[in-house]
């Protein structure tokens, strides 16, 4: 045991955590951007799918049903491979060319493909969350909005969704936490994010503990920051409604759930 710990390259570990190189910095930014973009598009897809599912047109309901069924029922890693390698073959043209030039910035095709795959996957899960959130709002809220002449869209936007948001945000927080970690799967199609960075470092040095411990630390940093942001968002939305709110630390560690249950 002692020998093992002594064998650790403490210098490397410290460097990977406190002073990572430029390539890692780039990878970190890429990880965050992909996670944020995929989540945003995932929420939009989920909203569309949820509204489809509540539509009175059967075709839309069926489309949404199959989308959720297929995406939730197959592994994410398979979906990522399918989107990146399979989509171009199916479509007959290169959907994700090596670089996509947006004038000011150019983005690697593989990054786009990875983000699309994550977003499509996320959309199916968000669809269920949003549908449940909207379903939790009393029907009378929509009726009251309609009775004063609001259209369905306006009533959704102004009356139903703001209330549903309180129900949606907590599980959405969990989803984004998962999203941050799931970006690591994109390493397998060659997206240079922090897991691939660690994996390559390891394959050169054969020092798995240092590299994978350090990259775990960074994932933990990202998810912890998100946890704090989420508490603030929930506060703003008044998710709790309770005057005596728990401190952020309890919220973060999830202590309050058990404490309340025991009461």
């Amino acid at each position, binding site marked *: 045991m002692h020998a093992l710990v002594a064998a650790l390259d403490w210098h490397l570990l410290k460097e990977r955590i406190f002073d990572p190189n430029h390539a890692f910095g780039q990878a970190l930014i890429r990880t965050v951007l992909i996670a944020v973009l995929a989540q945003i598009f995932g929420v939009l897809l989920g909203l569309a799918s949820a509204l489809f599912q509540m539509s009175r047109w059967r075709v839309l309901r069926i489309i949404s049903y199959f989308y959720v069924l297929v995406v939730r029922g197959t592994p994410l890693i398979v979906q990522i491979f399918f989107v990146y390698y399979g989509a171009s073959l199916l479509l007959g043209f290169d959907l994700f060319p090596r670089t996509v030039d947006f004038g000011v910035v150019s983005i690697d095709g593989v990054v786009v493909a990875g983000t699309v795959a994550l977003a499509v996957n996320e959309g199916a899960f968000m669809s269920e969350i949003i549908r449940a959130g909207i379903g939790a709002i*009393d029907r*009378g*809220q929509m*009726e*009251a*909005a*309609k*009775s*004063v*002449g*609001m*259209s*369905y869209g*306006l009533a959704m936007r*102004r*009356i139903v969704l*703001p*209330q549903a948001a309180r129900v949606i945000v907590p599980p959405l927080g969990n989803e984004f936490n998962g999203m941050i970690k799931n970006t690591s799967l994109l390493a397998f199609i060659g997206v240079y994010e922090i897991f691939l960075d660690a994996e390559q470092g390891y394959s050169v040095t054969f020092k798995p503990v240092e590299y994978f411990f350090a990259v775990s630390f960074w994932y933990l940093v990202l998810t912890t920051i998100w946890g704090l942001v989420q508490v603030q968002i929930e506060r703003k939305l008044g998710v709790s409604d309770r005057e005596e709110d728990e401190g952020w630390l309890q919220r973060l560690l999830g202590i309050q759930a058990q404490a309340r249950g025991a009461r």
Partner: protein
Amino acid sequence: MSAAAGPIVHAENVEKYFGRIHCLRSVSLEVARGEVVCIIGPSGSGKTTFLRCINHLERIDAGRIEVNGHLIGYRIKDDGTLCEDSERNIARQRTEIGFVFQRFNLWPHKTALENIIEAPIRVRKVPEKEAVTQGEALLERVGLAEKRNAYPGKLSGGQQQRVAIARALAMRPALMLFDEPTSALDPEMIGEVLEVMQELAKEGMTMVVVSHEMGFAREAADRIVMMDDGVVVEEAPPAEFFGSPREARTQQFLSKIL
């Protein structure tokens, strides 16, 4: 408007099914401008359903309903047949019709004032400042000026219902529909809501009220309509209705509740 002289509500042979349940059977009713009509009857008689059909919260399966001379929920195609109206037209027609719900249905994420000014601003496109002035006047009118910034959760049932009435009035409707507006209230709060409604009636608002409040019906209504089992059983002015009801079913119902 072309039909300004005609009745404000004209319902003709309205039929409504919920699945296999036939809950409105050829219901016809006319309400004149400025008239206050109370619909009473045992629960399950279809009175609430009928009221909800008037502003198309429920679709009717046959017959026709006109408000202010305009067909509700349907439009006449060029070939003379009826088809479902566009969402936009239905929404526009609803701006003419105020609806007060049994369970208030105030929007809990908005203050009393915000509940009132939401639709004028978003639907009628009234400038915000003007809407606020009107909203405050309406709160004053229902006796809740000091509750301007209170959220519904902090209001009593009676106060919530008065805000809900103000919310409906903010659209300046030509007709107000009340669906058992006091049934969900504690007894001591019923009076304050009825008072507001009585005031409205006096000011000449056209009202259709589904209610079990016989006192209100006797005092404020111009006409009482008795429904049972999806049918209009009898209609008469209150003195006649309560004094000498013609139908056996009416007599039976009245003997139970009076």
